[in-house]
């Protein structure tokens, strides 16, 4: 019978492959991949024989078809590429190249990704010596058909000429390449969209294990990992389980995406969890359970890989502990070859505290545990029960671990993987591999928690960017950084509690956990506070107006304590940084820092957010509301109180506030209303004005008083947040008391006309002020002083003017401020005989402070111009 022609061969491949793939879910992953490789093998065998029969000259040049890489290992996933080598002895006839193409083109047309090389034996050897990628693919080489002789020769010479002489160098560079690959693809044991092949904990880690075992001991098949003693029986069992899960997921991913796709993108995750038929459990979505399982498997593979490298004596280059000269402080622990060991397994049974002690030593000496010690901690961690882990010396050991910087490796993560951390804090069990299925939380809760602790520790290291200097400085000022580290470790522990706000639930858990560990009540309070409020700063900074003083004051009165604010700030930074790039960037960072500094400023000044101030304001609000009987009015007053500035609430007395609320209710659509009260004993008048605020209002009112020869003795200016200005002027009564009422009426008319633009105040005043000029006593020799202070408040530039009194002074100064583009928010004017101190809290019309030196200079010059010495009076 004549051999089948190319067309028949290709159709057979198409059909069998199609059938296999459409049924892939009925196979175990390993079986499917093996069948898939076999189908391809059959195609190449048939193709090979056809070529032999078609071209007689070819038989003079025997060759071998060799499967490489994943195809060589028979790990042929649905869309995996097909790596091939056509191996010739010495030379390659042109005809052969043509025939090989005939065999490969139909595969490309089918959409298979075929990579092939046609090489002679010597070419293979010299390339393998130069290129590690060629070498690793040859390590997995498998003869498909053709000349077994050439194949055997290649394998033999490869070992003799390339592998044996360079084994150490090759392994070292494999380890290095793995390290680089992990850097690039990230850690699949927690990433949101893990890479099944190239990430840390991915299939490549397993391949690297195989390659190293092949190089070192000539391993033939994966089972040899156990028989040759690279792994224990249990470990090999876990390995096959982890691999078959990952391969299965990979096949599904290939099927869904229709291409070679190794990155588990979001769009496929839910579909995969459906294909795997995972059911919802304990309020966790199927996709969350699926990812949790996958992370667990990949995490296992990642650690097994590290353990393997460690035992084989290879550690990633550049990570060898540098400063590991030291002795263990515990006689039951040993320091051998830069790793820590238990003196004997028996010791652990007698002294379970050694399980914790070994990590304390590891952190102190900056030396990792040996692979065997890690195995023992895994096995024996159950011995560390509540009494052991909560005794004072164990708590102290753990505190030391928390406080020690993360250098070459993270002791806490080691404690987490071995299960010891959950023994120490059982409440953490609920957040291990807890996935939050969204794009915001990049890491499972436990990994995020450890990252947060690490981020806090890194505040102490030399800052990488200038903006981190600030965090470093704040950290250095903390008197008890340990409390911050505990808060970082426990801040999300409430996420394991279903159906409750995680901050509140967490704060409660913190109290139980730390009480068991005998922390002092005030320390427990602090950590519980930090955990409960760990989102306060970031939510306020991003969702409230941070340029509003009120926002900072509210936040400050909640925090109350400077040390707590500092810890909260650092916790917020570390938490956000460890959540992912969507939660932390320069933009959020600067928002948070600006806001925290403003809150700090409020707390340091103490004036408005001290506990007394908070209490006074609270009590005053109560009195104001109680004095209003009408429910309707009380409701209005209540909402109005929310608009009032803290400064006003603190300094105005309750009766006056009630009067002011009444005054405000008369305002309605008018520009302003005022109320004049007479105090006969001091012979002064108090004018309370309630008006719609706009820049320059203050100077206009002052100008109208001056125009009417009403001397201003004292002013308090307040701005409410509903854009209402409340100005309280204390003035001398007009000289002619008989016509006082008429005088007030005229002043009111003036102000009305000024505000409606009918009267030009500066023209009207020019004449008046010229009149005044003659009466000014030039007797004072004191120089006046203008101070512009930008440090007293984060929200306002404070301008203080020390001068002596003369008529129209206030109008002149406030008018100068207005001309400089400044809006007066608060003013305190005090006149003693002829000495005046005027204080203004100002911002520009865009609501910003004025702190550019040239602008400050302009303001000083403009004010100085209107003061008498240099004035043009």
């Amino acid at each position: 019978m004549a051999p089948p022609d190319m067309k028949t061969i290709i159709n057979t491949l198409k059909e069998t492959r199609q059938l296999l793939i459409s049924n892939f879910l009925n196979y175990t992953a390993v079986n499917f991949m093996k069948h898939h490789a076999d189908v391809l093998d059959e195609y190449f065998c048939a193709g090979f024989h056809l070529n032999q029969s078609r071209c007689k000259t070819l038989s003079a040049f025997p060759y071998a078809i060799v499967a490489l890489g994943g195809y060589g290992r028979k790990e042929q996933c649905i869309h995996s590429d097909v790596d091939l080598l056509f191996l010739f002895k010495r030379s390659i006839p042109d005809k052969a190249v043509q025939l090989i193409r005939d065999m490969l083109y139909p595969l490309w047309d089918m959409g298979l990704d075929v990579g092939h090389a046609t090489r002679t034996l010597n070419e293979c050897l010299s390339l393998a010596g130069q290129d590690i990628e060629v070498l690793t693919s040859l390590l997995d080489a498998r003869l498909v058909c053709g000349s077994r002789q050439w194949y055997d020769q290649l394998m033999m010479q490869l070992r003799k000429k390339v592998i044996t002489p360079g084994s150490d160098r090759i392994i070292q560079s494999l380890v290095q390449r793995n390290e680089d690959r992990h850097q690039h693809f990230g850690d699949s044991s927690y990433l949101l969209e893990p890479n099944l092949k190239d990430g840390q904990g991915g299939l490549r880690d397993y391949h690297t294990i195989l390659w190293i075992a092949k190089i070192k001991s000539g391993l033939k098949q994966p089972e040899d990992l156990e028989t040759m003693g690279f792994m224990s029986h249990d470990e090999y069992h876990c390995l096959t389980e982890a691999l078959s899960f990952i391969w299965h997921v990979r096949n599904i991913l290939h099927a869904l995406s229709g291409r070679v796709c190794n990155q588990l993108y979001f769009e496929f995750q839910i579909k995969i969890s459906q294909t795997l038929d995972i059911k919802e459990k304990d309020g966790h979505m199927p996709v969350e359970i699926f990812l949790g399982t996958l992370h667990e498997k990949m995490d296992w593979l990642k650690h097994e890989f590290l353990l393997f490298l460690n035992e084989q004596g290879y550690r990633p280059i550049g990570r060898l502990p540098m400063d590991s000269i030291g002795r263990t402080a515990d006689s039951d622990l040993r320091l051998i070859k830069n790793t820590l060991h238990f003196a004997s397994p028996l010791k652990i049974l007698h002294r379970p505290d050694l399980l914790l002690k070994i990590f304390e030593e590891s952190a102190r000496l900056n030396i990792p545990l040996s692979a065997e010690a890690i195995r023992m901690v895994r096995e024996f961690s159950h011995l560390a029960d509540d009494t052991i882990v909560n005794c004072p010396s164990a708590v102290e050991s753990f505190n030391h671990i928390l406080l020690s910087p993360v250098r070459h490796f993270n002791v806490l993560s080691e404690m987490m993987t071995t299960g010891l951390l959950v023994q120490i804090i059982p409440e953490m069990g609920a957040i291990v591999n807890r996935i939050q299925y969204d794009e915001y939380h990049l890491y499972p809760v436990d990994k995020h928690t450890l990252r947060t602790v690490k981020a806090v520790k890194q505040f102490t290291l030399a800052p990488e960017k200038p903006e981190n200097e600030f965090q470093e400085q704040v950290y250095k000022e903390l008197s008890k950084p340990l409390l911050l580290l505990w808060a970082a470790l426990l801040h999300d522990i409430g996420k394991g509690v279903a159906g409750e706000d995680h901050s509140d639930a967490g704060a409660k858990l913190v109290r139980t956990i730390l009480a068991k560990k005998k922390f002092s009540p005030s320390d427990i309070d602090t950590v519980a506070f930090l955990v409960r409020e760990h989102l306060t700063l970031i939510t306020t900074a991003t969702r409230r107006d941070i340029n509003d003083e009120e926002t900072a004051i509210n936040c400050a009165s909640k925090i109350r304590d400077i040390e707590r604010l500092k810890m909260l700030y650092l916790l917020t930074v570390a938490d956000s940084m460890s959540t992912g790039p969507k939660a932390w960037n320069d933009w959020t960072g600067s928002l948070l820092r600006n806001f925290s500094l403003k809150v700090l400023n409020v707390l340091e000044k103490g004036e408005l957010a001290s506990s007394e101030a908070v209490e006074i304001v609270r009590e005053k609000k109560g009195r104001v509301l109680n004095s209003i009987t009408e429910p309707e009015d009380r409701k209005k007053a209540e909402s109005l109180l929310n608009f009032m500035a803290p400064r006003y609430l603190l300094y105005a007395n309750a009766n006056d506030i009630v009067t002011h609320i009444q005054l405000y209710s008369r305002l309605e659509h008018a520009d302003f209303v005022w109320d004049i009260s007479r105090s006969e004993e001091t012979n002064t008048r108090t004018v309370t004005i309630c008006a719609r605020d706009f820049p320059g209002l203050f100077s206009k009112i002052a100008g109208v008083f001056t125009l009417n020869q009403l001397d201003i003795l004292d002013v308090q200016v307040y701005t409410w947040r509903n854009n209402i200005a409340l100005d309280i002027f204390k003035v001398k009564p007009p000289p002619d008391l008989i016509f006082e009422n008429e005088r007030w009426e005229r002043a009111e008319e003036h102000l009305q006309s000024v505000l409606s633009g009918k009267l030009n105040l500066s023209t009207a005043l020019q004449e008046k002020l010229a009149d005044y000029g003659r009466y000014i006593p030039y007797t004072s020799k004191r120089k006046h002083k203008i101070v512009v202070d930008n440090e007293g408040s984060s929200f306002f530039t404070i301008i203080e003017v020390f001068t002596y009194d003369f008529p129209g002074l206030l109008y002149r100064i406030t008018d100068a401020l207005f001309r400089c583009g400044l809006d007066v928010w608060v003013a305190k004017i005090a006149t003693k005989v002829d000495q005046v101190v005027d204080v203004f809290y100002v911002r520009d019309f865009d609501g910003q402070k004025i702190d550019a030196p040239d602008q400050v200079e302009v303001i000083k010059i403009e004010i100085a111009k209107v003061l008498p010495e240099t004035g043009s009076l």
Partner: protein
Amino acid sequence: MKKIEAIIKPFKLDDVKEALNEIGIQGMTITEVKGYGRQKGHKEIYRGAEYIVDFIPKIKIEIIVESEMIDRVLETIRKASKTGKLGDGKIFVTPVEEVIRVRTGEKGKDAI
């Protein structure tokens, strides 16, 4: 068609988004931006060290609308982003020549 670019305070984003949804605008591009206007940044002082805040964090919203919608959209953004205080940001309007939906190739009004 017009492109509207509005620079607003970060905490006003939700209000603006909601108000725009109410008048039927659903698509918009939101960017976290930093910038300064008349003011050349300011200083924060902490323990004697100065931290220059060159740029102030703001949110930029970009929307493409039909020309006849423009007044309504502008008024909505203005109202929603106003805090009653100064420094509430700015809105820019520019003409847009063409809009094309990549998937279908639709143009103009249909592609918005």
